[in-house]
Structure formats: C-alpha cells, structure tokens
C-alpha cells in the first residue's frame, strides 16, 4: 500500500478535480456542436422542432458550462498549487498551449454570452446561428490545446535537459509532439460521441416517459446519427492511439495488455485475473490481436514488460480500465449502427422499449468510458509525471496541508454535483416541451 504522503495526496486531489471537471468539460466540448447542428437544420428546413431543440439544449448547457468553468478554474490553479516543481519546469517548455487555451476560453465565453441572449434579435436567423460557430470552435480548440499539454507529459519533446538546466527550447515541437495527433483527436472525437449519447439517452428517457412525438423522434434521430459518426471515428482513432503507444510508450501498452514477454504474433487478453507469478487466468485470448492493435500486422513483434525495470511498471489494474473503455466503445458503435439499420428497415423496433433502454444506459456508459480512458492513460504514465524526465513524486508540493484540502474539495464537489443535478431536473420539469413549443410558435 503506498503511503499517504503529500505527493500521493496531491495525486488523489488532482485525479478528483480532473475526474469531476472532465464530465462537464466533455459536455462543454460536444454539446455546442449538437446545438449548432440542430439550429442549422432548423433554419434550413424551417423546422421549428429543431430550433426548439437547440434552445432547450442550450438552457441546460449553460448550467453545465458554469460547473465546467468553475472546476476548470480549480484545476488550472491547482496545477500550480499541487505541482509547483513540475509547473516550474514544464511551464518553460509547454507554457504556449496553456496560454493559447485561455484565448480559446475567451473566444468561447464571449460568443456564448452573446448567443444566449440574442435568440430573437436578428431578422436573418442565420446570424444567430453564426454566433454558435465560435462557441464550437472555441471549446474544441480548448480541448485541443489542453490535450497537447497532456500529450507533452506523455512524450516530452522540444528541449534538452543538461545538469538540471533546460536548454534549446522549441515550443512548437513541444506542442506538436508525437502523442499530439492521436491524443487530441481521440479526446475531441470521444467528447462529441459522449455528448451525442448523453443527449440521445435523455431523449430516449423522455420518450419512454411521455410517449412518442415528432419532436422527440427528430431529437433521437439527430443525436443517434451524430453518435454513429463519432463512434466509428473514436474507435478508429483509438486504434491509432494503440499504435502510438506501441511505438513511443511500449511499457504503457504492455502494462495495459498484461503483455509480459516480448513476442511475435501476440495475443490480446480480455479480462482475466493475475496470480502471484503474473500468470493470466480466466482471460479471453484473442489470437494475434495485440500485434494487430500495436502494429497493424498479425505477426509483428510486441515489446513486453520484461524489458523494463519492475519499479517503472505502471499499476497493472489499468488493464481492466482499458478493457472497459474498449468494450464500451464497441457497444456504442454497435448500438448506433443498429439504430441506423433499424430506422431504415424496422422503424418501430428502434423505438421499442428494449432499444430505448439500451440508449438510455449508453449515455452514462459513454461518460464512464471517458473516465476509464483518462484514468488508464494517466495511471499508465506512472511513475512518471514527465515521461522518462521527471518522476511524479518529484513534481509534487511539500506542503502538509494537502489532506485537508482534499476533504475541502471533496465536500465542494459533492455539493456542486448534487445541486447541479437538482437544478437541471427542475428546469426540465418546470418547462415541458409542449407548452414551450406553443410559445415559440407565437413569437
């Protein structure tokens, strides 16, 4: 059992804040895309249903954005408060994207403010829609910039370290390091996917409760088609992420796959348990699949954990997190494909109770996949805070008060999460679609 020193507590507090922030951040990246899409379709087809959809989503979105903003502010400052030594070093090399991110926030915040309060201000409805474009761009760019920072932690490039001194700094190389393409695209694509499924789940739930209506059916169709597109892209990019790991961080992949010996034609292990000799029991073995995931070739050689000193192995439980993420990814892709097929051939099946329930659970599942994926990726980087440059324990604060701060923030997030849920529920209950639709037509 690792002891609870200030480094360990800092890790816990960082994980808690990020784990909470990511829920709202993911929606913050993805939901604007869906809002913008719905409004656009609504204007183009002159369909009031879609425009109402955009309005109602926006109203809930404002509340989740607010929580995203405040928790983001927390993590932003906590990076310096909890990891002062790390930030002092990293700041010199990777300060650029962090700084750029604040411009993306600015851009998003300004246009979101305008978008919210100008629904009926313009004669030409496209003007209002145009205001949503900077919101989409701003939030996606902020996800991009912060992902490059995280990519840098996994694959630090663009500087030289000589006797503790950092020299030859190249900010753009640091930012566009080898991990950036897969990291940023997987994060963005999975945020779109998750937001689409969360909104689809909400819609499916309302259909079950209130019965079918043209409004809900359009909402379901729109969100599920979006979900399908991003389920496929997320899985494809996920496959590229595996290839990135095989090339640049082979021990992370090996730890995730419980792959101990370097071998050709490696099998992929799903599930299972490890005994004390690190033998895998009860797992499902997919022959040669690991070689395919790692190199796209069933007979390629995959590096095993044996080639690395044992004190540099990441905790092996990340295997389950990886499996859960991929499992959920497969399920989401299958579900949205099935929806597409059914909606063409057997429409009533796609609105059956069973199918709707499957969609309802897919919303929370997608969010879980985000959490699992991040924890896998972050814990899999251990013991490094900067891969092969700085160890996590050397980056942490030396303050003795991290424990009490953990309790403080824990209480804060509990209260925040709880009230946020109540406020959202109340908002939708007090404002049924039917009455609002009539109001909108009157305007």
């Amino acid at each position: 059992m690792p002891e609870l020193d200030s480094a360990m507590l800092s890790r816990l507090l960082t994980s808690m804040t990020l784990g909470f922030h990511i829920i709202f951040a993911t929606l913050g990246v993805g939901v604007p895309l869906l809002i913008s899409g719905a409004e656009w379709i609504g204007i183009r087809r002159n369909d009031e249903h879609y425009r109402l959809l955009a309005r109602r989503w926006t109203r809930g979105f404002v509340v989740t954005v607010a929580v995203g903003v405040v928790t983001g502010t927390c993590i932003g400052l906590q990076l310096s408060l909890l990891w002062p030594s790390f930030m002092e070093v990293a700041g010199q090399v990777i300060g650029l994207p962090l700084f750029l991110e604040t411009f993306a926030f600015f851009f998003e915040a300004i246009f979101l403010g305008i978008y919210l309060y100008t629904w009926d201000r313009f004669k030409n409805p496209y003007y209002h829609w145009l205001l949503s474009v900077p919101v989409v761009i701003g939030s996606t760019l902020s996800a991009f910039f912060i992902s490059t920072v995280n990519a840098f932690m996994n694959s630090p490039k663009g500087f030289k370290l000589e006797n503790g001194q950092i020299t030859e700094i190249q900010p753009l190389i640091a930012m566009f390091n080898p991990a950036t393409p897969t990291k940023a695209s997987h994060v963005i694509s999975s945020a779109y996917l998750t937001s689409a499924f969360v909104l689809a789940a909400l819609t499916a739930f309302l259909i079950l409760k209130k019965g079918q209506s043209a409004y809900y059916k359009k909402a379901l169709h729109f969100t599920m088609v979006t979900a399908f597109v991003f389920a496929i892209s997320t899985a494809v990019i996920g496959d590229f992420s595996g290839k990135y790991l095989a090339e640049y961080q082979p021990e992370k992949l090996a730890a995730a796959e419980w792959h101990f010996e370097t071998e050709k034609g490696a099998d992929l292990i799903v599930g299972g348990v490890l005994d004390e000799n690190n033998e895998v029991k009860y797992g499902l073995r997919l022959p040669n699949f690991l070689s395919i995931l790692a190199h796209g070739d069933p007979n390629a050689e995959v590096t095993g954990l044996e080639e690395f000193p044992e004190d540099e192995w990441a905790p092996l439980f990340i295997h389950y997190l990886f499996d859960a993420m991929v499992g959920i990814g497969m399920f989401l892709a299958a579900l949205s494909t099935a929806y597409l097929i059914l909606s063409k051939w057997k429409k009533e099946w796609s609105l059956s109770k069973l199918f709707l329930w499957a969609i309802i659970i897919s919303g929370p599942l997608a969010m879980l996949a985000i959490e699992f994926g991040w924890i896998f990726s972050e814990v899999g980087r251990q013991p490094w805070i900067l891969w092969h440059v700085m160890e996590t324990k050397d980056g942490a604060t030396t303050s003795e008060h991290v424990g009490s701060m953990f309790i403080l923030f824990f209480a804060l997030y509990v209260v925040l999460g709880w009230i946020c849920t109540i406020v959202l529920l109340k908002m939708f209950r007090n404002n049924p679609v039917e009455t609002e639709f009539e109001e909108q037509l009157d305007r």
Partner: protein
Amino acid sequence: MEIQLIGITVLWIFLYGYLIVASIDFGAGFFAYYGTITKKDHIINNIISRYLSPVWEVTNVFFVFFFVGLVGFFPSTAYYYGTALLVPGSIALVLLTIRGSFYAFGNYGAKESHLYTFLYGATGLLIPASLSTALTISEGGFITVENDSVVFLVDELFTSFYSWSVVFLAIVSVLYISAMFLSFYASKAKDTQALALLRKFALFWSPPTILASFLVFLALRNHNIEHFNRMLDYSYLFILSFICFNIAVWFVYHNKRYGTAFIFVMLQFFFAFFGYGASHLPYILYPYITIDTGFTNETMGVALVIAFIAGLLLLIPSLILLMRMFLFDAKYVEGTRDSR
C-alpha cells in the same frame, strides 16, 4: 522594450481588466443581497442581472488568463506562490467556485433563492479580500525559504497592519467601482429609481476608497520602505489618479454624465494600479523573484508574445461585439428587447 517587461505589462493589463470587471461583478453581488434584505431588490436587481448575465463567464476568463499567463511568462512564480499558497489559494478557489456556480444556478436555472443570493453576496466581499493578499505577499516578509522549502508565515500576515489595510482597500474599492458602474448602467437604462439608489451607494463608498488608499500608502511605508520610496518617484501617477477620482465623484454628485464619470473611475484605478505596478518592479515576489530571474527563456517569451498579439486580434473585435450587444444597445439596456 525588453521581452520581460512586455510580458509583465501584458499580465498587468489583464489584471487591471480583471480588477475592473470583477469589481463590478463582486460589488453587484453584494448590492443584490443588500437589496434583498432591505426589500429594495425590485428596484435594482433587474439592472444588475441584465448586465451580469451575458458577461460573468468572460469575467472569469480574465482571472484564468492572468494566472496561466503568469506561470507561462514567469514559471518560478508557480514554484514560490504554489508552494506557499496552497491553503489560501484553495480557499479562494472554493469561494470562486461557489460564487460562479450559484450565480448560474440562480440565474439560469431555478427560481431566486435566498441562500443563493446570500452566498453570492457574501463571496463578493470575501473573494477580493482573499485575492488581494496575493499582492500583499508580493511585498515580501510573508514568505521565507528554509532548507530549500518555501514557508508561508500566516501569523505575520494576520497581524500585519499593511495586510489589513490592503484588504480594506480591496473591499471598499470593489463597492465603489461597482456602484459607479451600475449608476452608469441605470442612467443608461433611464431607470430613475434604481439610479437614485445606486448613486447613493456610489457617493457613500467614495470617501472610504480614498481613505483606504492613503492608509495603504502609510502602511507600506512601514512595511517595505524601499518600495515606498520608488512609489514616490511615480507620485505624478498617484496625483493624476486622485484628480480623476475627484472628477468622477463631481459628475456623480451633480447627477450628470455617468458614462464620463465611469471612464474617470477607470482612469483613477488605471493610474494608481500602474503606478503601484511600475514601482513594484523589478520584483515580482520581493526579494525572491524579479522579472529577470523569474523569466522563462527567451524563445518561449517570444512565442508567448506572438500568441498574445494574435489572440488580441481575435479578442478585441469579439469584445467590441459583446459590448455593442449588451452595453451600448439602448434597447437591451432598457430591457425592452425580448432577449431570451
């Protein structure tokens, strides 16, 4: 100009921006709460929420911009301030979080709630008080380095006359700036009832603002005489600031030109803030970090400045658009537009 100086100037400008927009926001929270308990909320709360709703997130970004930029340009501030300020920083964060989220919950979500308004009002005074201590600490004497670790001298801070005078200044100037701005907004909205009340607040809080400023001068003289003497070199800026204060109050007192009055309030703080900042140099954290020792490398500095210029090209038009929609649009300000 040297790149370090450009860096600190950029950051200082944004901190000044935050000072103004956040003061309006913090003070408004307090007035809204005061309005509720004195049953005058129907008079002023409409004005307040009409201004605040579209801009609160932007206000927050000013703050984020400042601290992210500070770590970018001067990474060693992360080390010193980060290690020393874990507890006060976390408390300020919790307050900010409560404030921001409850504002949104109250305003966009559920109906008005007394608890939300109270939290919103109380945090409006506590946050400036706690954030201002970061500047207090920068004067030196509250952080020491013992065997390679940074120690924050809490007792010193709580017993220092200087530190309390800064807290006092922070709180009263928040109320003063906010009342001045809201008077302008109310006059623009032609809301005479709200204007009468807000004008009273503005006049009420102006003498304490000047009093507090003098107190801070005196206290700094005892606390860091070196800085005090450099401030005297810039005394013309502080005199300008005082003149602007008088003009602003004169306009409000004579019940005219609230817009011009607010511009003079901004100038008043601009001169004082830059006089303070310029005389603070070269130190960022006395005596450990100066703008030279704490600076990131040249390459990163240049990259950040380029990013900053590119960013401004994007931001300035957007901010102008925002202001035209909500600050200079008479119909919106008067509340006759169907906004939602």
